[in-house]
């Protein structure tokens, strides 16, 4: 004869177990609760591998720490809704991001000030991102650049200005980025070319409409992977992407980069930084130690080299093979552009709406 269990007792015990589980989830919080552990979010591929390698070094040389890694799903901006949904009970301690995403985090006041990181003083102040109080809140690990480029074998006439994109020989061969990709910098480049700026994108939109009507746009969006795949396979020939993308494409096809075009105001290298941001919380002190560790000259040189970008620490040496993507000091004034991300961010909603209502319909009709 088995145990005496009535339906009432069964339902009551299930309800009690459910309540206990719910209490654990609500009260237990989301943060890593082990003594020395961190939860980090970064991009996949070379970024996470390099971060893991530095994490192992940190754990053996500085402080034994267990790291758990999560990958960004799509763009880094996708992490913002996840953080907001559970703030301040967030499970992440350290988040890899870049300029426009950091500005979103600063608006929400999520970031720990990092002015006391010893290695930050070796990073030029121009690469710091500061909060509303003027305090640095990021540990920038690498410099990257976005630029126009094309498959040399698929483009018959060399491109020397953005106006050349209207040439009929480029029918269906140009990739446009969705505005949220790369913080609408492709549109900014078009605005600059025709006398505009981040504050006045109208010349950029005028040209974009002309380009959409021309029938030369073959694809919209796709992110980094879409850019690399589409260009490598020859689906598109001309695009605007990160230096790391062009390095990947170059392994399979000859590429001409348009980041050193003296006659063009829009064909430049649009620079941005990537690195660590520390979310305010109980693990901030440990996360700051790790971020500082990554910022040392040797570690920054290793990280930037591993992902194919330029280091930010002035004592770190850039990889010589990357010289075509980054500038010598005398080239910076002529060819580099440092976008005003807060200005772009404040207009992003309008930019997306204009792209959806004014540009995509023209591409579809062309």
């Amino acid at each position, binding site marked *: 004869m088995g145990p005496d269990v009535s339906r009432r007792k069964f*339902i009551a015990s299930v309800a009690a177990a459910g309540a206990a589980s719910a209490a654990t989830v609500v009260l237990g919080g989301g943060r890593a609760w082990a003594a020395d552990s961190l939860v980090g979010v970064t991009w996949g591929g070379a970024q996470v591998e390099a971060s893991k390698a530095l994490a192992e070094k940190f754990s053996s040389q500085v402080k034994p720490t267990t790291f758990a890694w999560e990958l960004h799903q799509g763009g880094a901006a*996708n992490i*913002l809704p996840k953080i907001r949904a559970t703030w301040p009970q967030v499970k992440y301690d350290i988040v890899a991001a870049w300029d426009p995403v950091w*500005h979103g985090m600063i608006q929400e006041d999520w970031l720990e000030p990092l002015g006391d990181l010893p290695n930050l003083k070796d990073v030029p102040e121009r690469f710091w991102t500061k909060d509303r109080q003027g305090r640095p809140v990021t540990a920038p690990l690498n410099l990257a650049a976005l630029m126009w480029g094309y498959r040399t074998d698929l483009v018959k006439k060399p491109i020397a200005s953005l106006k050349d994109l209207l040439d009929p020989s480029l029918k269906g061969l140009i990739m446009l980025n*969705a505005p*949220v990709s790369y913080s609408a910098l492709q549109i900014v480049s078009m605005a600059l070319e025709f006398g505009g700026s981040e504050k006045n994108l109208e010349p950029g939109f005028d040209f974009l409409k002309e380009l959409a009507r021309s029938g030369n746009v073959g694809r919209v*969006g796709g992110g980094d992977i879409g850019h690399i795949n589409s260009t490598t396979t020859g689906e*598109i020939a001309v695009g605007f992407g990160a230096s790391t993308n062009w390095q990947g494409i170059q392994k399979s096809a000859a590429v001409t980069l348009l980041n050193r075009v003296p006659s063009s105001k829009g064909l430049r290298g649009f620079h941005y930084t990537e690195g660590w941001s520390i979310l305010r919380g109980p693990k901030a002190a440990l996360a700051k130690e790790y971020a500082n560790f990554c910022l040392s000259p040797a570690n920054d040189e290793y990280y930037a080299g591993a992902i194919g970008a330029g280091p930010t620490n002035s004592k770190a040496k850039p990889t010589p093979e990357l010289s075509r993507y980054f500038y010598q000091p005398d080239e910076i004034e002529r060819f580099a552009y440092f976008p005003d991300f807060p200005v772009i961010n404040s207009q992003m909603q309008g930019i997306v709406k204009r792209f959806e209502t004014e540009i995509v319909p023209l591409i579809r009709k062309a």
Partner: protein
Amino acid sequence: MRLTRSAALLLAAVLVVFLGLYVFPLATLVRESFKVYRSGRIGGLAGTFTLANYAELLTPAYAGYFLDTFRIGFIATALGLVVSYPIAHFVARGRGRIRTLWIALLVAMLFVGTLIRAYSLALTFGPVGILLPVSRFLGVSPNSLTITELVVIAGLLHYVIPLMALTLIGTIHNVNPALELVAQSLGAPRWKAFFTITVLLSGRGILSAFLLGYALTISSFVIPMVLGKGIVLFATNLIFNRFSELAHYPGGAAIAVVMLLLSFLIIYGIVRVVSRRLEPA
């Protein structure tokens, strides 16, 4: 029939789950759609109210996106029905091992993730697949709107055919095959007996399969995202862009609410029209 205490308790538990996981999130979504959004912030501003998120959608461009969603979804569902009915008929009338094998095959297709299927189509119809030489032969750009829409429809078909076929198998199985034989013995040609007996009697099942397929196609997100090349956009893609990339929750919520209302109206209309025709005279 009186509700016993334990039945009431169980029903209450189900109701709590339904309210908590369905009604409450929907209500939150509707509330979010009326909040003010500031560019650069995450989500709507608490305590605000505006109709601007809905007013933004009153443009021909957004009407076009909704129209595309319902149009392409309808085409894919109709084609899916045409393909899945013969499959279901073959399986329903089959016997023993053949029948079991086909049902297992249809179910197995459901286990293959949508993303995998979408990317397999992207490879097949992409620049390294068969599409490039075929489109060059036909003199059509593989990046043209027509080709892109066709590839999206192919992706949706891949998605709905197994489900629609499985839905129809039971319905067709319940139609006595002897009725067709009787009609033929009274002089009706085979095709006429098939359409006027079997197809007509499985009408409600066809309607169910169509509604299931249509709901899946218009709510599809991965397939237009992977295969649409940013040119063919469904309402779901607009919603994703706003929630995930722009953190513009109010805008995404407004599109979701409009989509929900339009879907309800369209599906209600279809059910009413078809049900009237299926009612006995």
